[in-house]
């Protein structure tokens, strides 16, 4: 692993962690949202704290060409250009929302960077305008967490670290905050490392994924590459799905149907209006994809796409998980299909065979 290359986040830490050893290393692009995903207690939070410098284990940490930790080098947390959102909002109770937001904002001497995030922009982005003069004690859980996110952003970080920022919130509050996080992702170029044990948050937010289990990294890469890798546990779960972005090509207001271009094909999905050029996050569950040898003559299914079988693996005694790539000609976007072993054998599918993927449901996340 190279030390400190630009546009890369490199982290490698070793140490004892409760009952097991932590020995995790990964390298991900310093752009977009990287999900750090794994079951509770697998060491995700420890890794995040080590990147922030809040905890010190042996290892290496370099972000976008800057070495933060390596051998004898250890930059203390207040000298690392990070923003950190804890599981609990942890607002300063003795300061108003405004003074909480401005606590970490650069003060005095140094001129503002040209790409600095402005105070009003943060208020607008996170819907905080009406809350600024309040005391933290008078905010709801969701409002507090939004203030905590705004406070981290206004410290003008070069890397935002989020430690299960939604897990202390109830379902409704989560749904209230997720759109704000999606807007952050769209409007700011800030790289984010997002720790969670909830796959639905990863599916909505992440571009890259680091999969962890019991203190080790078992996979790292683009989200859909890991979702569609049969060797990794994600593809084998009941909820296996592929998440990827599509570009809006057209919107048909008469039927309320959106046409999205993805690598290797076009997908239709019912949706509210969207303008061409916008991007939308799609989620296609493996159980919503079935296969046919030839295009079916007439069907209520909107999406029937030419595809090619990449690989297959048994999931349980009677089911198969099939990895597809869209398009007959070249390797496009990957999809997963969950079919019965009976169909697989009777229809005579094989790796490399051209097929037609029937997609029963496309859900759009990013609004």
């Amino acid at each position: 692993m190279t030390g400190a290359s630009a546009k890369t986040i490199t982290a490698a830490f070793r140490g004892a962690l409760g009952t097991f050893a932590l020995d995790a290393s990964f390298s991900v692009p310093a752009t977009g949202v990287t999900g750090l995903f794994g079951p509770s207690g697998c060491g995700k939070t420890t890794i995040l704290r080590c990147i922030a410098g809040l905890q010190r284990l042996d290892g290496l940490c370099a972000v976008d060409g800057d070495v933060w930790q390596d051998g004898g080098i250890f930059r203390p947390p207040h000298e690392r250009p990070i923003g950190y959102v804890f599981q609990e909002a942890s607002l300063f109770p003795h300061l108003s929302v405004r003074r909480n937001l401005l606590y970490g904002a650069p003060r005095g001497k140094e001129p503002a960077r040209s790409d600095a995030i402005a105070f009003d922009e943060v208020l607008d982005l996170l819907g905080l305008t009406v809350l600024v003069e309040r005391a933290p004690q008078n905010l709801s859980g969701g409002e507090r967490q939004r203030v905590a996110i705004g406070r981290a952003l206004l410290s003008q970080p070069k890397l935002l670290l989020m430690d299960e920022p939604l897990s202390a919130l109830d379902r409704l509050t989560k749904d209230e905050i997720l759109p704000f996080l999606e807007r952050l992702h769209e409007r700011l170029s800030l790289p984010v490392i997002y720790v969670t044990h909830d796959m639905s948050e990863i599916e909505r937010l992440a571009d890259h994924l680091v999969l962890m289990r019991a203190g080790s990294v078992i996979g790292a890469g683009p989200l859909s590459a890991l979702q569609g890798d049969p060797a990794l546990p994600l593809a084998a779960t009941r909820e296996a799905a592929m998440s990827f972005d599509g570009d809006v090509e057209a919107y048909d207001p008469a039927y309320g149907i959106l046409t999205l271009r993805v690598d290797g094909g076009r997908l239709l999905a019912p949706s509210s209006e969207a303008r061409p050029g916008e991007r939308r996050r799609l989620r296609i569950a493996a159980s919503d994809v079935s296969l046919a040898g030839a295009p079916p003559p007439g069907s209520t299914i909107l999406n029937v796409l030419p595809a090619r079988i990449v690989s297959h693996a048994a999931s349980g005694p009677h089911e198969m998980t099939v990895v597809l790539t869209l398009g007959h000609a070249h390797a496009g976007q990957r999809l997963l299909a969950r079919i019965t072993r009976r169909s697989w054998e009777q229809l005579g599918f094989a790796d490399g065979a051209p097929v037609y993927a029937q997609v029963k449901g496309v859900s759009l996340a990013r609004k």
Partner: protein
Amino acid sequence: MTALPADIWQPVRLTVELAAITTVLLLILGTPIAWWLARSRARWKEAVATLVAMPLVLPPTVLGFYLLLLLGPSGPGGALASLWGARTLAFTFEGLVIGSVVYSIPFVVQPIRNAFVAMGERPMEVAATLRASPRRAFWTVAVPLARPGFLTGAVLGFAHTVGEFGVVLMIGGNIPGETKVLSVAIYDFVETSQWYEASILAAGMVVFAFVVILAMMLIEKRVSRAGA
């Protein structure tokens, strides 16, 4: 009502002066000790905590005896006093201040330490991730959050210094205007059968104690409300 005799006021003024100086010194000295006791992971931390707590348990005469040795002409206090031509720190106001600081230290350090512990690590971590240096985080986060502890410590330290008797008797004696504080004055008035003066001072102390304890309870109530 007859006018209060003039010699009542001198010990009162002296006591307030002593308690105020002692409290300020204890806040300055006690805060770093409390911070260290709250945050350090050193194994010998509890030994230091025990030393700080000793005056709670030691008889004032024992404490006074050792202070007398320390402050007297042949102790370090005497050496210090010789810098400005004095022979000893014992039986002086300065000596009394030193004695009071030692005697009242647990009453100031303990509440401040508890407040720092109750705050937890998180606020300081948050401040660090917001680019605050440890110094700035201490002044802008730890001190304001521990304010109730500082208030309690200051009130207890002040009150305890006002009430000290044994230590004063051992190292201060009974010099009017120099070391004759309230508690000693009451004792004196009783010895010389000046019951009227003694009862005024004693009643004043009762009122004072009531106000102190009431203030403490109000502080605590405010804290638990802010924490909710």
